[in-house]
Structure formats: structure tokens, C-alpha cells
């Protein structure tokens, strides 16, 4: 690297930083964000958390109800992820370059995936809430649609990344499409796909809380209820149970990932 290039790089970095600062400034202006105020609230907020977010004996009495709702939320996200994975597998097979049937289906599969992925889960849950009402099915469907889009993209990537030689070898022996898919494509990309499914279950438990607040189901609804009635001890308990559930699931899936990848 000669002197001139270093100079040019320095200029580029400076301009880049200036642009970022400008965009940040613009954002503070449009959102009415007060930097000083917000820094000042951090210690206050943390102090508040330590004094108010305490689990007391009384709130422990709510534990069975919380566990039931938490169970519902976990089951909801696992069911949504698994079923979405099955559908995504078909969409991914249609969409991937290696296994596509024809270009029209491939385009269609990619379009469905992009459409369902890029509309946030909030929008899906609000749309579904209108006619499905306040129950688990609404949350399940919202998670299902959002997961479908994400997993299809991930699966397409894992199929495309898989080694082509076994596909070629099977094609040469005159194997049918289904043989190629079931004996060459799926066995190779299955561990990768499972890893994505596990990742999505973790993410969905967190999103399920959000969906729950919006659609009035599961642990999110319970949080919202006690949050609005300002019973912060129960709020703390609910938060801790969610944290423990998420961390346990993360640990389990890390263990599985270590074995299969």
C-alpha cells in the first residue's frame, strides 16, 4: 500500500463517518430523541429495575399460571417453526438452483418467501387478529408465516451450498428427481437445515412474547396484563421465566449443533 492509497482510504473513512454522523443527527431530529435526557435516564432506569423488579413471595403464588402460559408460548413457537420448516423444505426445493422443477415455480417460491419474510411479524399478527380473534391460533399463524419466509431463504442457501458432485453422480446413473432429492440433496443439507430450525425456535420464543402482547395470547398477554396494572413483582417473575426458558433452549440447541455440524 503506497502513501497515496492510504491517503485516499483516510478520506473515504472520514466522508463515511461524516455521513453516518449526519444520518444520526437527522434521526435524532425526526424522532425527537434527546441524547442528554436518555443518558440521564439510564441510571434511573437501572436503579428502578433493582428496586421494583423484585420477585416476592406474593408473586410466586402466580407461578403455576405463568408456567402454563409460558408452556403455551414455547409450544406455539415450536409448532410454528416445525410446520413452517416442512413447508419451507418444499418451497426451497422448488426455489433452489440445484433442484428447481422449472423457472416459474422457482420464481414463485422465492416470491412467496420474500413476501412473507419482509412483512414483519407484527403486521401479520395484526392482520390475522382481525378475523381469527384472541387465541393461540392467531399467534401460531403469525409466527408460521414469518418463519416460513426466513427458513425458505436459509434452506435455499444450504441446498445451493451442498456439494454438487453427488447430485451429478446420481443424475448420471439415471436416478429420478425424487431419488436425487431424497438420497443426495436432503442428506447433505439436513444438519445445516436443522441448525437453522433450532435457531428459529429460539428467535420465535422471543417473538412469541411480542406477538402475545399484540394478539392477547400466551406469556406476552400475561406480561401486558400485569404491566398495565403495575404489578411489577409479577412482571419481574415473568421476565425471569422467559429469560430462563430462552437460555435453556439456547443451551440445548448449542449442544445439538455441536454434535451435528
Amino acid at each position, binding site marked *: 500500500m503506497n502513501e497515496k492509497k492510504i491517503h485516499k482510504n483516510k478520506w473515504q473513512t472520514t466522508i463515511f463517518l461524516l455521513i453516518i454522523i449526519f444520518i444520526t443527527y437527522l434521526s435524532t431530529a425526526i424522532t425527537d430523541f434527546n441524547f442528554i435526557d436518555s443518558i440521564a435516564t439510564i441510571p434511573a432506569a437501572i436503579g428502578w429495575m433493582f428496586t421494583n423488579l423484585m420477585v416476592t413471595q406474593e408473586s410466586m403464588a402466580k407461578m403455576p399460571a405463568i408456567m402454563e402460559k409460558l408452556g403455551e408460548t414455547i*409450544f406455539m413457537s415450536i409448532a410454528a417453526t416445525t410446520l413452517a420448516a416442512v413447508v419451507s423444505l418444499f418451497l426451497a426445493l422448488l426455489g433452489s438452483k440445484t433442484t428447481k422443477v422449472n423457472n416459474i415455480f422457482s420464481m414463485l417460491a422465492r416470491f412467496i418467501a420474500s413476501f412473507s419474510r419482509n412483512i414483519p411479524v407484527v*403486521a401479520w399478527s*395484526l392482520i390475522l387478529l382481525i378475523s381469527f380473534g384472541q387465541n*393461540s391460533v392467531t399467534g401460531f399463524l403469525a409466527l408460521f408465516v414469518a418463519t416460513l419466509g426466513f427458513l425458505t431463504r436459509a434452506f435455499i442457501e444450504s441446498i445451493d451450498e451442498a456439494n454438487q458432485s453427488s447430485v451429478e453422480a446420481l443424475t448420471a446413473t439415471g436416478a429420478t428427481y425424487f431419488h436425487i432429492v431424497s438420497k443426495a440433496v436432503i442428506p447433505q443439507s439436513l444438519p445445516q437445515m436443522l441448525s437453522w*430450525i*433450532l435457531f428459529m425456535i429460539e428467535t420465535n420464543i422471543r417473538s412469541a412474547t*411480542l406477538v402475545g402482547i399484540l394478539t392477547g395470547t400466551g406469556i406476552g398477554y400475561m406480561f401486558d396484563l400485569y404491566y398495565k396494572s403495575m404489578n411489577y413483582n409479577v412482571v419481574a417473575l415473568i421476565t425471569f421465566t*422467559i429469560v430462563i426458558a430462552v*437460555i435453556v433452549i439456547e443451551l440445548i440447541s448449542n449442544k445439538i449443533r455441536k454434535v*451435528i455440524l
Partner: protein
Amino acid sequence: METSQAMNQALMKRKRNGQINIKSGNKIDSAVKWTIWVLTVLTVISFFFFDYTGLQLERAITETAHNLRVMFLEPGLSHFGWGEAFYQVGITLGLGVLATVFGAIIALFLSLMAAENLSKPWLSKTIRIIVAFIRAVPTVLWVLIFAIAAGLGSEAAVLGMLFHSVAYLVKAFSEAIEEVNPGIIEALRATGSSWWHIVVHGVLPSTFTYLLSWTFLRFEINFSVAVAMGAAAGAGGIGFELFMASGFYFDLREVGFITYAILIIAIVLEVISTRLKNRYFPSSVKA
């Protein structure tokens, strides 16, 4: 003769009827199989745990189909104009930008302390545990908790999103920093350079583009989080309008318009981040 027979027996497992078992059970296959079985069983069980109050499936499906048709084929605005729509989208983008920029700056410092090759083991462990805890709490809950102390508004939303962004980016950044060629660090250490010298001249130049790409990926996530915060935590922006349009006015055309607006921005962000990913992450990277 006998030895070869013994070897045969050791190598080939036979089924009870004498057939040679061609699938040798290895650990990976059985783990994959078990995971799939467990997930399938859990999925089936979960449908018995669902709460089906007030669900009329047939009516709901036909109604949703009708709603989706109205939303996506006849989008329109009735409660606010185009200018207001752009302004609200701007607010949501702004919330995302603020959380991402501040998050990246804080995460950079924390990740230097969390990276095992630059820091002491106890420090890196402590930060990792705290970060794992913060990441496990859903972002909405952070925002709602901050809303009590800071009041509803952009401050609470940005702070809540910031917490989660920092936790996410610290994990990504510290993993990237740990992959820095140890030779570079060793060479700088041998010359007697200080910790700051190592960071500024050794670590940052070789990871900078990587860190930037991660930051942009986080921005993509933060945009959809900002939409969610508007709807669930009253943080304003397009998410709040979406919540009002669907929950209070029942105006499907407006819901459709807002959904299109979100969709367009999300697709633009996705295209940019896919390009960044293909350029800077040659192998697969978890989002």
C-alpha cells in the same frame, strides 16, 4: 483364514435375518434423527395445549382471504396523507438508525473486552454472561421496562432497542475479533506496543468491513423491531399507525398501504445486506 473371518465379523454388522446392515449408525445421524423426532412429537402435543377460545376456523379463513384481498389490491390512505406517511416511515427508520449507531459504538468497546485474545478470561466471561442474559429478554420487554422510567416515547424505544442491539453485536463482534490472525497481535506485542496500539493498528483494520456488515445486518433487524415497538410499546412511527389502522379504525385499505410501505423498505434493506453478505462473508454466516 480365521483372522479374515474375524475381521469380516467386526466390520459388517448383520441384521437378525442375516442381511448386511448398510447403514452404520453414527452419532450425527442419530442426533439428527432424534432431534426431528422430538420436534415432531412436541408439535403434535402442542396442538392440544392451544387455547381455542372464540375461534371459528372456516369463517376466519374466508374473512382473512377477503381482508388480504382488500389490503393488497386496494391500498389507500384515509386518516393521513402521503407526507405524513413518509414522516412516520422516517421516524421508524430514525429509531432503527439511533439504536444501531449507538449500539455499534458501545458494542465495539465491549467486544474488545469480551474477545478472548485481547482481554482477561474473567472479564470476557463476565461480559459474555451479562450479554447472554440481556439477549434472552425480548426487546419489547426492554422497551416497556424503560418506558416506566423514561416515559413512553422515542427515548424508551431507543434505549430498549439499544440494549438488545448491543448484546447481539457484542456476540458477533467479539467472534469476528477472535478470528484475527494471532500473528498480527503477537508481532505488535513483540514490538512492545500497548493494548490500544494493538487494537487500533492490528485488530480494527483487519476486521473493520466485517464489523460494518454486521452492523448493517443489525440495522435491517432493527427496522422491523422499530415497527414492532411502534405497535406494541407505543413508540410512534409507522408501526403505531399500523396498530391504529388495524385495531381502532379497522381500515383495511390503510393497513394495506402501510404494509406495502414497510415491505418496500424491508426489501431494499434486504437487497443491500445480501450484497454486503456476499461480498464480505464468503462462507455462511448466521443472521
